[in-house]
């Protein structure tokens, strides 16, 4: 099984510990992981801002970096969603389709491919799970609260395997955090308000740590929490599964 690690650009630059945790976690599960060095960004920020037509070269770089692997695994639902659903182009149709078939968000890979039933980690904390939207509704990592289907959450199930970890119930189980990529800057006031409301929900329900499948949501929430001088911390779920100490 040839597995490539996809590290979204902002994780590479600002949250290396999340990529390290993902790498180590996969190795613990006896997976050999490559890190294709020429990877940069999936191009989502540019495309969501309406400039998808500028991203052809970025998409090409992505496809070249990740061709030839059986699986591509990334610790971000949002970036994986973008690759899976927005990459297109006649020039490299087959290559793109191959990448789209092989790319997985981390909890999806652990659940559906590795069929993980046991995680060797402890985290004796009250944890609020922020269900990042693109992973939840885009990749269907779990059911959304709008759907009338059987309840499931791949991420939640994995977190429940961690010893001592106590998940708190939220008043609004899957409301957006308000980050939204460039939305966070172009509609800063709105983004802030949605984020503050989200934090208040976690706080009201006693979360000491907020975790998520996407560090981008957590970057936004963490920015607000630190400005508020709150005691609540954020941590990517890969760090928790990899045995981060609280």
């Amino acid at each position, binding site marked *: 099984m040839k597995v490539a690690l996809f590290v979204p650009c902002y994780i590479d630059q*600002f949250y290396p510990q999340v990529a390290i945790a993902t790498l180590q976690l996969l190795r613990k599960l006896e997976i050999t992981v490559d890190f294709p060095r020429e990877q940069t960004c999936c191009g989502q920020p540019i495309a969501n801002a309406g400039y998808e037509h500028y991203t052809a070269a970025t998409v090409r770089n992505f496809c070249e970096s990740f061709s030839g692997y059986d699986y591509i695994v990334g610790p971000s639902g949002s970036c994986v969603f973008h690759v899976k659903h927005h990459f297109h182009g006649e020039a490299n149709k087959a290559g793109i389709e191959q990448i789209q078939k092989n790319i997985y968000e981390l909890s999806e890979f652990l659940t559906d491919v590795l069929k993980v039933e046991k995680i060797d980690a402890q985290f004796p904390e009250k944890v609020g799970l922020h269900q990042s939207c693109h992973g939840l509704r885009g990749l269907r990592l779990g059911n959304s609260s709008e759907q009338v289907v059987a309840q499931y959450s791949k991420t939640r199930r994995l977190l429940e395997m961690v010893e001592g970890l106590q998940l708190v119930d939220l008043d609004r189980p899957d409301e957006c955090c308000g980050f939204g990529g460039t939305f966070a800057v172009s509609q800063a006031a709105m983004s802030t308000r949605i984020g503050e409301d989200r934090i208040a929900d976690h706080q009201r329900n006693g979360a000491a740590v907020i975790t998520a499948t996407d560090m981008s949501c957590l970057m936004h929430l963490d920015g*607000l929490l630190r400005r508020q001088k709150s005691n609540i911390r954020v941590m990517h779920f890969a760090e928790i599964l990899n045995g981060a100490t609280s």
Partner: protein
Amino acid sequence: MNHSQSSEKFLRDKQRTGWHDASLWFVREKRDAVAKAVPEWETLRTLASEIKQQVLSDLDQYLISFEKNAQKNGVHVHWARDGKTHNEIVFNILQKHHARSLVKSKSMLTEECGLNEFLLANDIEVIDTDLGERIVQLAEEPPSHIVMPAIHKKKAEIGELFHQTIGTEKGNSDPAYLTEAARQHLREKFLRAEAALTGVNFAIAETGGVVVCTNEGNADMGVHLAPLQIHSMGIEKILPRAEHLGIFLRLLARSATGQLLTTYTSHYHRPKPGGEMHIIIVDNGRSEQLGQEKFRQSLCCIRCGACMNTCPVYRRSGGHSYGSVIPGPIGSILTPGMPIGGHPDLPFASTLCGSCNDVCPVKIDIHQQLYHWRQHSEIRQAAAPGKKRLMQFAAWLFSHPQAYRLAGKTARLFLRMLPRKAIYHRWNHWGLSRELPVAPRESFREWYDKNEGKK
């Protein structure tokens, strides 16, 4: 003004924003409760979506058979290419009957056409009879929501408005008192009206009849009292057969207000004895939208408003912040393709969270359409005029791995070295309310090269 600016204004009143958000979330939760009591909910959504898409594929045929069947029942059918034509048709019908007063039951289409303004300018009295619609009409405001037009108004504000406009006691904002006062006020209008106009929820091709859903019975009251009845509908309101109502009525009421069924479901097939019935079929940009493959699905909309109630942005900015006839997520994908106004940046008034897709009873891919509309040059330009260069640079950077690595390293260095004041200033919109991430000395790649050896 764009949506970003108008929502910022709304957000300045923190308490009111919280109240507005909670009011609409309450409706969303009511919807959840009743939807979840229907085990076949997702099947209903799939059926509704498929029926609507089939209707759109054969719309011309359905409209022709609808017209034929309506005419067989003695109904006058009119076709209006745009809003202006629609208004003139209404006016001509009224003139023919020497009617000087018209009662309306909620119709977003007539809002879209600007019918009220047109008729008032022609000396016709127009009274909106739905309570919420009447409130916004008295306040001289457009509706802020397509199902709950006055949801942005607090009780006390309605009390004051009624005091000033229909003479209720000053300071009395008891809902029962105000509703009764409105009822008495409207009763008199109903009795005097010479014509009644309603919107249409569903138009049945096989019967030529139209269906209107209300909770106040005002459509019936208007239609039954006035000798002349007019129903205005968009071309996309067609359902092939009456039996399809079994799917759509269940979905509509539950999605809109969390009711099992609206209090009144009125079916109009033919004029009452001695009366006259007209149906006006309006295009106003719909055919053009139908011709756009990426956006045609927006015409499946049954105007339930569930996407507004679930949208984290709508709940915190209110319907007026969109500047469009139809606000919220569905408004943001309908408006750019149709001549119905609205702020130019609406497809950007979203975090792309996708909740609208999942709540939509006819499964419109709103979130994908928002993404596609963003790719239109005028729309992205309106949202952020200065972004083009930056995006060009980012695209170049992301396709040149070495430059990307160097830029990342430099940016992190600056973030660590620069004094706080040089980073957190008024042009840093992120930093107005949030801290930036702490810039690490090593990127993951640098860590990897050091620890795993450069390969």
